[in-house]
């Protein structure tokens, strides 16, 4: 994978991660499940996804954009 495509991938991932932290497509929805609104469950799950993505980034490309090899 070329460097440029990889960077683009991270930019897109970061954008999607930010934008869909709020389930905009459920705007006005009031369904609940197991005692919490469904939209809140989405958010809780999404934060879990964010943690996994952050972990992958920290393991792989953390230093790629900072110009360091080993610190």
């Amino acid at each position, binding site marked *: 994978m070329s460097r440029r495509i990889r960077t683009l991938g991270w930019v897109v991932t*970061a954008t999607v*991660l*930010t934008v869909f*932290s*709020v*389930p*905009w497509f*459920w*705007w*006005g*929805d*009031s369904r*609940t499940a*197991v*005692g*919490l*609104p469904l*939209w*809140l469950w989405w*958010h*809780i799950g*999404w*934060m*879990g996804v*964010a*943690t996994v993505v*952050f*972990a992958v*980034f*920290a393991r792989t490309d*953390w*230093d790629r954009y*900072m*110009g*360091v*090899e080993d*610190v």
Partner: protein
Amino acid sequence: MSELTLQLAIVVGYLLVALLVGLVAYRVSTNVAEDYYLANRSIGTLVLLFTTFATLLSAFTFFGGPNIAYEQGPEWILVMGVMDGVLFAMLWYLIGYKQWLVGQQQGYVTLSEMLGDRFGSPRLRGLVAAISLFWLFPYIMLQQMGAGEALTGLSGGVIPYWAGAALITAFMILYVVLAGMRGVAWTDTIQGLFMLSVVWIAVAWVLSAVGGPSGATAALAESNPEFLTLGSEYYSPQYIISTAVVIGFGVTMFPQINQRFFVAGSARVLKRSFVLWPVLVLLLFVPTFLLGTWAAGLGIEVPEGANVLPILLSEYTPMWFAALVIAGAMAAMMSSSDSMLLSGSSYFIRDLYRPFVDPTLGERREAWLARGGVAVFATATFVASLSRPGTLIEVGNTAFGGFAQLTLPVLVALYWQSTTRDGMLAGIVGSQLLYLSHVFIPTLTVEIGATVVPLFARTYGGWDIALGGMILGALLTVGVSLLTTPAADEQASRFVVGSD
């Protein structure tokens, strides 16, 4: 023991434990400025995570936030998630890690010092420090006012407001003077872990009495069904996005947060904290804000000016437990102020006093002077808080927006080597002026043709003007940098990692 004695005993007990931690930290510290401000850049993951976290929480987590959730529904959880869980985590990497790397290389202690050195400009250094102190001072005052009022409320008026605020100010001075960054970070950690556990115990306690989350939510569906619906007139998309972006970006430039970007012991510490951030945000804000929301369904009545969480807890949990939570929340306010005092003092001494008044100031004397700065700063905010000037309160309430104006110019400077001194000055001054004018000049309405256009409004079509200021700041920084050439003493290589 009466309720009052017990509550006060818990508060005083907490203060003494914190002081003890400060003493231990004092004993392991060496007396140079870098150790006092930055704990020798040796902070580990858990402590870094929680000290940043504790500094973020403040009174909003336990009082302001649950109050809004009680009145408007729990969508603030989403705002917090976007703001702190995602945006701040990304800035933690983009600004925080970069600053850490540059700081390791050049030994910077403050943001203004870093910028001033890179752009060869004491004026820029002084400007950034002065702007930061301008927004920080009233914000500390608000924390003191909050803690003073909480103490008055807790003692049922036995302790007057001025005495409560004075006691807290005295304690904060004593503590920060002794402990420095190391002590502050240690107590933040103990307290962060403590508050996190206590909040979950509180949720378990309340929910066990009302039939679990399903029971509590069912009650809410009866009384306030609109709270379960995503979005409302109050929580418009514009509000959610503006708030999350402005505060998320503003937080990174708050001196006490920004200075933490320099203190990590290793890159691994920064990585781990970055990964754990969204989870930690969820663990704290979901329970506190949900408690506020559920209180609405449980028929909890909140008198004017009171906070919902203490009332809910005294209804469903034993008295000592409720007192413990309040004491912890008050302590959270104080720990935020501690960190702000310490950083404010370092900005003042290092970036205003030393360059402009006494350039011969040594590291050892600086550490002592910094302590004096803390005392002066805290006393000044205390005196100001007694008369509660409306203007200062306004500044404190808009502090996040004010700090957010600095973020984009700094981000541009960190990554774009063609940034010039003139570009930075234009971006910072321009955005501050735009934002300040909108905070202080009353809204005017102008009729242009058939439409009425508001001028100097705080929001336009629901969008916060702070966002406009941020965009203007970025455009000015980039635009003016393109039009000007760097001065001879600007050193772009300062921000290139691995160049030395």
